């Protein structure tokens, strides 16, 4: 019997035994074509999806390699049907190619006429294509380059985009590696992107995605448009770019609700791009304001739908997407693939943690018991009020206080959803509260104070979840929140994952009301975190209070 580290399941999941001596070798072999789905302590689960297989094809792997890897590492015989499916799926990528044509601009060609005929018969394809140029190619309206790629992916024949890119307006950008240097994986990620032309780089929170963006800009040496999630992010990117590159403050423009600067490097928020007046997007001209050589998308998994549509028109420009996860709550992974590009780089969290680039975190769920009168009130509460009731029980207050006391001297973040609860906590803990209405200036001031360790405890609401940088947060205490969303969990954990100067481990507490809907939500979180490979523990509030 073969004793490989891999077990191939009939549902196309791959189980990798991580303690096996060939596990590392196997992980490297399967990573290009399988997405890591779960990474608990002993057995990791990868999934082979059509997109993953096409990503592998885009990265230059062929079906033979995939099948060899599966058979070579598998402990048990690989189901024949799966192998056939892999070969068939992979053969679908690249049958159609988008190419540049000296006369017709953009053409769709294929060496498999049957496939071309099939897609051309599709009703939605017809308006996108022009005249038929011989048997194997057809002209495509250059403006439809993105749309046709989206459509072809939906039809199951993803096209390989070989039509190239415009260089854009040149602008010198260099990394200033003074007192710091590009980490090996950051360099690999930037190089992988550049060779691929366009695509997505997947790195965990805290792994320095901004720097990968800067490195990509240094490759492009051209004017760059950076799209980020919110204003805080804009400032952060700006600070980081000034620090890490030869760019000066004058070369970087902010394009937000309040400022509308267009400079060689311009940072805009998704929000301003998608804001409408009178039913039209008012800031679309930003895309044409300069001859951008590179477009950077931060947090691709949050990219709003209108941006996808705008991106469809930007296919001639190089695009790099940065994200912690390819999983989208709305299932639009396929659009990321066709419009931004295939996955170009991916590194597993755990491995980076082992290399010391991100801090390991301990997750602890603290269960508080509702008082008898609270239980009665909970039972009588309306369904939609139940969560709020369970999540904001006063018992959590005492537990939070106890935890803050326990971790006195460390940088502590308290995260919650309900403003009343946060205000109350702020009062009890004697800590400032950052919420939606907090002014950006004030927010940044508090963050800076927290960074400088002038502030030890900070209470934040949901708004703090995305793209803020709190390097020294060692402890996070989550008191409430809509836990259903997987990527929100990743974000929250990302807050405390930042490597700390003393190398100490980070801690993530979540406080949960026992036997309530709060606990059901917590079960999702527990599963997600355990699947990400974090140590997870459940304790009773009494243990904390004791």
């Amino acid at each position, binding site marked *: *019997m*073969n004793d490989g580290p891999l*077990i*191939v*399941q*009939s*549902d196309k*999941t791959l*189980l990798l*035994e991580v303690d096996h001596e060939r596990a590392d070798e196997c992980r490297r072999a399967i990573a290009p074509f399988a997405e890591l789905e*779960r990474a*608990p*302590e*002993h*057995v990791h*689960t990868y999934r082979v999806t059509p997109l993953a297989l096409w990503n592998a094809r885009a990265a230059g792997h062929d079906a033979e390699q995939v099948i060899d890897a599966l*058979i070579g590492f*598998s*402990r*048990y*015989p*690989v*189901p*024949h*049907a799966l192998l056939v499916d892999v070969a068939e799926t992979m053969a679908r990528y690249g049958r159609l190619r988008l190419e540049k044509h000296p006369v017709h601009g953009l053409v769709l060609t294929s060496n498999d006429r049957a496939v071309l005929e099939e897609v051309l018969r599709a009703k939605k394809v017809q308006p996108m294509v022009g005249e038929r140029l011989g048997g194997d190619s057809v002209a495509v309206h250059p403006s439809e380059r993105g749309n046709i790629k989206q459509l072809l992916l939906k039809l199951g024949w993803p096209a390989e985009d070989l039509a190239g890119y415009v260089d854009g307006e040149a602008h010198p950008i260099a990394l200033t590696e003074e007192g710091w240097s590009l980490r090996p994986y950051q360099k690999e990620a930037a190089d992988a992107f550049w060779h691929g032309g366009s695509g997505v780089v997947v790195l965990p929170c805290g792994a320095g995605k901004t720097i990968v963006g800067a490195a990509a800009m240094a490759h492009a040496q051209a004017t760059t448009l950076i799209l980020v999630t919110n204003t805080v992010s804009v400032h952060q990117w700006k600070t980081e770019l000034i620090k890490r590159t030869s760019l000066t403050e004058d070369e970087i423009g902010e394009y937000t609700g309040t400022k509308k600067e267009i400079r060689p490097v311009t940072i805009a928020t998704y929000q301003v791009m998608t804001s409408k007046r009178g039913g039209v997007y008012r800031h679309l001209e930003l895309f044409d304001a300069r001859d951008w050589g590179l477009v950077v998308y931060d947090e691709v998994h949050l990219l709003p739908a209108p941006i996808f549509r705008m991106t469809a028109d930007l296919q001639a420009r190089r695009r790099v997407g940065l994200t912690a996860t390819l999983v989208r709550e709305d299932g639009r992974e396929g659009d990321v693939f066709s419009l931004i590009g295939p996955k170009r780089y991916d590194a597993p969290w755990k491995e980076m943690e082992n290399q010391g680039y991100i801090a390991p975190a301990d997750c602890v769920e603290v269960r508080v018991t509702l008082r008898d009168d609270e239980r009665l009130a909970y039972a009588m509460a309306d369904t939609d009020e139940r969560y709020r009731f369970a999540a904001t029980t006063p018992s959590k207050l005492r537990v939070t206080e106890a935890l803050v006391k326990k971790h006195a001297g460390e940088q502590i973040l308290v995260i919650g959803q309900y403003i009343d609860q946060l205000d109350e906590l702020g009062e009890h803990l004697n800590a400032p509260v950052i919420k939606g209405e907090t002014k950006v200036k004030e927010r940044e001031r508090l963050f800076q104070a927290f960074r400088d360790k002038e502030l030890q405890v900070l209470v934040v609401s949901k708004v703090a979840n995305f793209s803020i940088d709190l390097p020294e947060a060692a402890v996070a205490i989550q008191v409430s929140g809509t836990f259903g969303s997987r990527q929100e969990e990743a974000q929250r954990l990302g807050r405390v994952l930042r490597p700390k100067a003393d190398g100490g481990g980070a801690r993530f507490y979540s406080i949960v009301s026992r*036997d309530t809907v709060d606990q059901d939500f917590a079960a999702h979180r*527990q*599963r997600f975190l*355990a*699947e990400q490979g974090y*140590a*997870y*523990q*459940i304790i009773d509030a009494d243990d904390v209070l004791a």
Partner: protein
Amino acid sequence: MERMSEGFTEWLRSRSDEQLRVLAMSRPELITPVPANVPGLAARAGTPSAVGRALDRLDGFTLAVAETLVVFPPDELPAAIHRATQDAPGTDEAIGRALATLTEMALIDGERRLAPGVQEALDPPAGLGQPAARVFRHDERAITLADPRAVRELIAQVGPQARAALDELAWGPSSGRVPNARREVSVETAQSPIEQLLARGLLGAIGDDTVTLPREVGLVLRDDRLHRDLSPAAPPLEGATRRADLAARTAAGQAFTFVRSVEELCEIWSVDPPGVLRTGGLAIRDLRRAAQQLDVPEWTAALVIEVAHAAGLVATGGPADAEWLPTLSYDLWRARQTEDRWEAVARAWLTLDRVPGLAGGRDDRDRLLNVLHPDLRRGAAAEIRRRVLTVVAATELAPSQESVLARLTWERPRRRGAHLARLAEFALREAEVMGLTGLGVMSPHGRAVLTGVKAADLLAPLLPEPVDHVVLQADLTAVAPGPLTGELDRWLGLAADVESKGGATVYRFAEASIRRVLDAGQSAEEILAMLARHSTTPVPQPLTYLVTDVARRHGRLRVGSASSYLRCDDPAVLDELLADRRAGVLRMRRLAPTVLVSKASRATMLDSLRSMGYAPVAESLEGDVLITRADARRTEAQPVRQVNGLLAPEAEVVTAAIRALRAGDHALLSRPVPASQPGGAVPRTPATATISALQEAIKQGSRVWIGYLDSQGQATSRILEPARIEGGYLTAYDETRAAIHRFVLHRITGVADVN
């Protein structure tokens, strides 16, 4: 014709018993039922259907030889075949083999003359047109065309377009449509190319608008060859090379998965049986559901269901036979080792005379074809399946579907067609899913099933070893890195939900699943101990917490069932009732000081209490809870028809048949009239002596005189040539009646020597 068939009969008669046996083996329909004598055999062999079936069994080359014999005299055969194969190496040997086969099958006689009926069955041979003599009756053209040189001259006279038309028809089809085919034309008046040809007799009208190429002309155009590119050998099988061990392991993996699917299906149907359609079979909706539950494509689900049925593991049952249920045999099957279980289902599949692959599709009349429905029966299914597998087993390669089909077509050219291609495709994919083949290569165990050898022993070492441990993880999953041993498998099936299947099984623990174990009577400590015992890693803290947390709340509320209750504000009355012996049958239990419950129905309760002198009143049944759990149900196994007709008949049967035939023939020749009743007393011998005497007679092939009680109980006597004893019957040629009869053994009163 009469002479010819007489000569054939004589030739048949001159064949040895062994030769006749070979004939019967290759054409079993000739001896079912056994003909009375050799003329009977000859007559049957010459019927169109018998000839047709015999020709159906010929391979491409042998058929070509037979066709050549239609056109050329026997002594010209080798030369004609050599022309057709273009002297390919091995032609002579192939001709020898083909002639031997044709002789064996009595399609030609000892002088290579075609047997009666063969020529007619092969008409037109190799796509040639009709002979000129038939096309131009009473016409001199027929005589002209008999000379090949004359034909060549005529062909040389026509223009290039006409020549092209001839070439078009040369290799068949030999006739074409032309308007006004019977028009009058002469060489002088001929205008169009067709007219040129008609005028010269190179084409002949055989209908008002149909013309044909006379056979003689066709042969000249074909350069005196009957066949184009005739190959003396079968087309080679082409396909990918696979590592044999890998292929065998893959097949074993599939075998394992398939057995598991069958078991899973039966388990699901145990508690949730689908209904039987009014017309028989299983609804498409239920097939889809099964496919979803088994996590396989629909065609695989159809296969699993059909095979489970063929193996006698599921059958109709339940009230009015309206449900598909696992059978009692299923329980026996389930208790066996995986390899034995596989062998059982694989054999059932091999002889299955149904085509599961058709399920879900539509028939010619656009009716939906349902699984397990009688409509899925196809007589040729099992034969084609076996032939496909035999072809695959003949090579070490993973033969491509095309080359398998090419080989099948060559083996039985008269049986090709879309039907064959479809059945072959189904057979190949089903063999792969069932694990007879792995990566397209025939596995050792698959080969064993095919040849009828015990396969389980070959499969067993290839199957994954059962493991007795799992890997527990903090995300509340357990991974079983292989098939689990029985006890653990059942326990985990209860304690966790299956999330993913394959070589390994991924289980997930959840509140509901832990509750199931607690419901089954285990405590939290027992669960944790079980986990600790079978985990290779420490039990993760969240899992321990989950178990204890569920256990903490488990059983806090108690639910029971009772048929009636009794309330009384005065506890003393209830004390009194409980103490009353007459109330014993009511089996009452006290739930609270003022409440009693009973298993007895409300009506019984009321009656009993009244008879005891109380005056109870009935209350409505609000709040009465009944909890029932659906039990695993079973039905009787029903015999499933297995068709063996396509398989070669048993040697014993054939031998007996030949013996009977010979005896009949002997009787025919020596005593054309029925033998007279022998005189003297009816023989009487003890039963054991009777049987041994009959067996001896069978062995010797000698005749005996028996006493026999007929169905009216009359004592008669017969002269027999016994052929075979089986199942309480003697099969023998009855010389008294000049026919083959079956005799009930216990009615034979005695046996005596004829002489």
